[in-house]
């Protein structure tokens, strides 16, 4: 039952990053490449119509995590207190940037909200990568210093950074050189994804140029990926064990690789949707490979004093998890119905859509 909910939550999270990921990516593209007012408008519209329903996946993932793994939810959210609250603030700036830019016609007003949307999307992409980096690196559970715990073994607290910026420090911070690398991977991946979304959803004048951008970003991404594989080993030496014991897990890195290689052919790809699928594979593969390398651990402990947080020692009761499955199934069926209705009515390029306000 724990495994079941673990998979469901992972799926919901991946869907969140695929869907809202293109909004973040769109923000990054908008920040660096959109020059004319026409393009800016179309690009914000391509995100503005959807961010709200995409963000609900985050809310759903949060709620399910709370329900199924309360101890993990409590530990991680209080331990990563500052970065989490900063992410919440950025999410607010992202949303109001998208919603409010069109409310007045003044150029200054639009510029403010464009910046709000672009910069917060960029930082959010960075922070999400950093978060993943923290999760694979592990934390000092129990706040252990010289073998003495400062508090209960399933709690911790991380400052934003430690002066050494090293992932191998006794008290690593949220931001260190390893997590920054993962953060950059996330930024580049989401930028590619966002560019594909803009191409798919709009007829903007920069669509041609964006294909070149994707190609270049993909080179950067490949370099970062290879580099990160080495440092990953350094930070978490056990990260290949799962793949050795259960070779079928290789499928997840392969998904990532398919996306990565496929995107080198971006200029030849005829159908925009195919390119978008490839960057989706990047996100799906990237997240699932990281999770697969850790399973069943949710958050590693960097020392032997306290055990890792796993899906087993942080889960709610068996009864709770199984009733939740009943309503969960009904909920997902309903959700797919909504999605089909929505896609049937709102497909196609956004340029022609009648934007209410």
């Amino acid at each position, binding site marked *: 039952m724990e495994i079941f909910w673990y998979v469901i939550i992972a799926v919901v999270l991946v869907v969140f990053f695929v869907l809202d990921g293109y909004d973040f990516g769109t923000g990054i593209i908008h920040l660096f490449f959109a020059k004319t007012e026409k393009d800016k408008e179309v690009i914000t519209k391509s995100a503005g119509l959807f961010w709200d329903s995409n963000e609900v996946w985050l809310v759903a993932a949060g*709620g399910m995590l*709370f329900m199924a793994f309360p101890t993990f939810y409590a530990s991680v959210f209080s331990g990563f207190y500052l970065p989490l*609250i900063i992410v919440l*603030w950025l999410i607010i700036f992202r949303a109001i940037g998208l919603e409010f830019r069109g409310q007045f016609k003044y150029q200054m007003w639009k510029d403010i909200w464009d910046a709000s949307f672009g910069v917060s999307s960029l930082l959010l992409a960075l922070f999400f990568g950093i978060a993943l980096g923290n999760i694979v690196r592990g934390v000092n559970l129990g706040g252990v210093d010289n073998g003495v715990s400062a508090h209960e073994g399933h709690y911790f607290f991380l400052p934003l950074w430690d002066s050494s910026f090293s992932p191998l420090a006794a008290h690593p911070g949220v931001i260190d050189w390893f997590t920054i690398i993962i953060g950059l991977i996330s930024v580049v991946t989401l930028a590619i994804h966002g560019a594909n979304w803009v191409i798919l959803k709009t007829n903007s004048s920069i669509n041609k140029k964006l294909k070149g951008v994707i190609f270049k970003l993909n080179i950067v991404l490949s370099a970062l990926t290879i580099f990160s594989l080495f440092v990953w080993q350094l930070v978490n030496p056990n990260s290949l064990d799962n793949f050795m014991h259960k070779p079928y897990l290789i499928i997840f890195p392969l998904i990532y690789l398919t996306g990565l290689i496929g995107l080198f052919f971006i200029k030849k790809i005829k159908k925009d949707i195919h390119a978008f699928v490839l960057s989706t594979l990047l996100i799906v593969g990237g997240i699932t490979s990281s999770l697969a390398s850790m399973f069943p651990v949710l958050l590693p402990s960097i020392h032997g004093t306290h055990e890792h947080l796993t899906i087993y020692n942080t889960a*709610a*009761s068996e009864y709770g998890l199984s009733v939740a499955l009943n309503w969960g199934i009904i909920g997902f069926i309903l959700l797919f119905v909504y999605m089909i209705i929505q896609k049937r009515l709102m497909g196609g390029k956004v340029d022609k859509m009648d934007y*209410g306000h």
Partner: protein
Amino acid sequence: MEDMIFYDRLQFAFTITFHYIFPQLTMGLSLIIVYYKWRYLKNNIEKYNDAAKFFMKIFAINFTMGVVTGIPMEFQFGTNWAKFSELTGGIIGQTLAMEGMFSFFLESSFLALFIFGEKLMGQKLHFLTGFLVFLGSWASGWFILATNAWMQHPVGYEILDNGKFVLENFSALFTNPWLLPAFLHNQMASVVTSSFVVASIGAFYILRNKKTEYGRLFLKTGVVFGLISSVLVAFPTGDWNAKNVAKHQPGTFAAMEGIFITEKAGAEIVLIGQPNMVSKKLDNKIAVPNILSFLTYQKWHEQIPGMDQFEEDELPDNIPALYYSYHIMVGLGTIFIGVMALALFFLWRKKLYNMKPLLWTIMFLVPFPYIANITGWYTAELGRQPYLVYGLLRTSDGISPTVSSGNTLFTLLGFVALYMLLGLLFLVLVGKTINEGPEPQTH
């Protein structure tokens, strides 16, 4: 430790108070929009559709605010109340996760369709999407109140040796005797807010002598919905809630009614008075004998325990704030009924549209339903103290063990600054929308 709890509580109180400014309008206004849309479907008079579209614009701005302030709420359970989340997540996680699954997905999927899709779908489908948005927002209220009801009156749980609450009976969460009265009262209260908003915009257009045709429509809708909901808020739902508190949280009841000393027979109802925590009595009291006993138990001489019957550490820690919150809510509720009844009377006599003083009153009354809603929640939440889960888990045992008060103060200040900005933007944008007013359909 003390200041840690203090900042955590302050941050939660501040962020939830700000959040709740928006959903109360969302829930009530979606009902009124559905009503306009339905009228339009029935009689095909354009002005109803214009009205629905106009309020949809306000709704959209309001909804964005509700969403962006709601997400921090969900995550704050983990950030600031980690111990509470760890111990009770197996139970209230259920209702919170269900809220995401059954209401937020519904609401957000169909909201986009409702706003952008009128031309694509035709009128019948458009009405349906509006109705689903309404359903989603009320479902959201239902699940969040189920969560709160469990904290006020825990049911269906079992406590393990390590202090964890585990779910024992899922359906008990929804048959909780606290839930239905609280839900109905809260939803009626949100209809009060939206009716006052609609009526107030109507009064504004009439007084400004612009868009008066819409002004009259809004005023009429606002007054009719306003009177009905104001009455329902007080009776039966408010009364029902009060009985629940008296039954399940007697100490809270004594504190919110301001009963310091148990009277031998028949408790009086206090109209005015200031709690004096030193002399343990109400200063400058005006009270009517025996009424409270009658209202609560339908018996004039039923004894109601006063605060002297409870240990100090079982009573709410801020009794004056609780007492005032409760009396402000009830006082405002009474005023709302009076004003709306008067307005309906003159509407019926066809004099309302020319009665300047009454129109001005209605226009300026708009902050007060918000105040009544917020003080209502303060009554519930301050009254639950010193517990997070009534009688079982103390507030001081629920905070995050590793987050220091300096960090909480930092984020609290951040939220205050950010929300001030949001509040300002909200007012500007809604002001602009109201100023532009509804636009007649052009074919």
